[in-house]
């Protein structure tokens, strides 16, 4: 198998606690790829394999670099990957600034802090302890912290699914801004068709540990500027239910 020089290509096979993962997938060099599918399909397991947090046999190439194959397994801390977990998982003993800089320092410097703070509107939060943040604020910090490690791949595991409607509405514009400026591939796990329609460029579907390509979201939901959010969500849901067949 040749090493693709751009984008992400991976395959993972194996058992984790009685669950069988048999996933082969590709990500485009830029843009957000949504990973959707029923609960228990293996989405989080796949994301953990990509980050190196779960070790299964397989192969993973990111931007021409082999992160894992038969005789190589890059430890999680050696993978230039940014991860946002479903619960923000901020480091409770550090301030917002401390959390943002924890990874940045280890990834080569604090450069980019101002831009990230600006992008995610974090300036008013900087001096606070993480215990005093709302759910949406916590996820923004988690996202900023991940971006500051200069990742070559961004992984987001349902980053806003546990937020209430108001917090979602508050954070979505930031994610859309991120989407416009992001120069690396991102994998975004989500159940929510409306979220996928707003944020994703491509779609992967997952079921019973297997991945099937879902094609380009934009083809289905791009030219919907005239319709309401609710209608767009409905359309996106219908499209995803129908399987969003790969482009012909």
């Amino acid at each position: 198998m040749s090493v693709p020089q751009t984008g992400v290509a991976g395959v993972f096979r194996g058992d984790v606690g009685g669950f069988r993962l048999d996933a082969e997938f590709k990500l485009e060099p830029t843009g957000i790829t949504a990973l959707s599918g029923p609960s228990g399909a293996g989405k989080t397991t796949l994301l953990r394999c990509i980050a190196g947090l779960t070790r299964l046999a397989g192969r993973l190439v990111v931007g021409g670099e082999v992160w894992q194959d038969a005789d190589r397994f890059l430890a999680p801390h050696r993978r230039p990957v940014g991860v946002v977990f479903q619960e923000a998982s901020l480091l409770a003993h550090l301030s917002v600034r401390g959390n943002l800089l924890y990874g940045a320092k280890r990834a080569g410097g604090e450069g980019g802090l101002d831009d990230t703070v600006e992008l995610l509107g974090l300036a008013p939060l900087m001096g606070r302890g993480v215990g005093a943040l709302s759910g949406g604020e916590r996820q923004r910090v988690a996202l900023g912290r991940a971006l500051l490690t200069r990742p070559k791949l961004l992984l987001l595991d349902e980053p806003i699914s546990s937020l209430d409607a108001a917090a979602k509405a508050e954070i979505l514009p930031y994610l859309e801004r991120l989407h416009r400026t992001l120069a690396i591939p991102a994998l975004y796990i989500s159940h929510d068709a409306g979220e996928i329609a707003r944020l994703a460029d491509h779609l992967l579907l997952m079921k019973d540990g297997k991945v099937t390509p879902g094609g380009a979201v934009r083809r289905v939901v791009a030219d919907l500027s005239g319709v309401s959010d609710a209608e767009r969500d409905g359309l996106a849901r219908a499209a995803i239910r129908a399987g969003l067949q790969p482009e012909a």
Partner: protein
Amino acid sequence: MGEVVLTTLRLAGLTTVLLLILATPIAWWLSTRRAWWKEVVAAVTTLPIILPPSVLGFYLLVALAPQSPLMSLLHPFGVRTLAFTFEGLVIGSMVYSLPFAVQPIRNAFEAMGGRPMEAAATLRASPLDAFLTVALPQARRGFLTAAILVFAHTIGEFGVVLMIGGAIPGKTEVISTKIYQLVEGLQYGDAHRLAAGVVVFSFAALLAMLLIDRGWDRGLN
């Protein structure tokens, strides 16, 4: 009497420092393994809580005596015996208080869970780096509890220090053995002073622990 207090504080301080260093890897290992047999190790480290101090003291005395296999390993280094020495007392106190160090630290690591370590790994921290900069600071309450319990428990021990130390004045005589000796000699006045000192100190130590715990609770929420 000042000498006895000094010996006691030296013993308690040294035991606390060495035991926290020893207990940290044990507690980490216990909190991160899933195998059932790790509880065998946990039970062994907890044993000193329920064993009679005389049983513990007896075995320690046997192990630290000149003819024991353990001591024969140290003979080439010029150490013949640790029985009835201050060093022997430190070792005995460490064994005696081991559960009081391991338990709170293990609980703190377990309360933290695996997620902060995973988050640190995705932020490029190596396992050792993450342990030092995430696990240790997040488990600081466990360390504080362990330190205070071990220090106070060492000051309170009697049976073990009597058996392996022999209460040699200026060397292995500590407050608890001194009180016993004073009472035997009917010197109730001195016994009262020392005993009251231990009660006040122990109360202050526990109160400090609870207050600091409470303060940290507020700080985090």
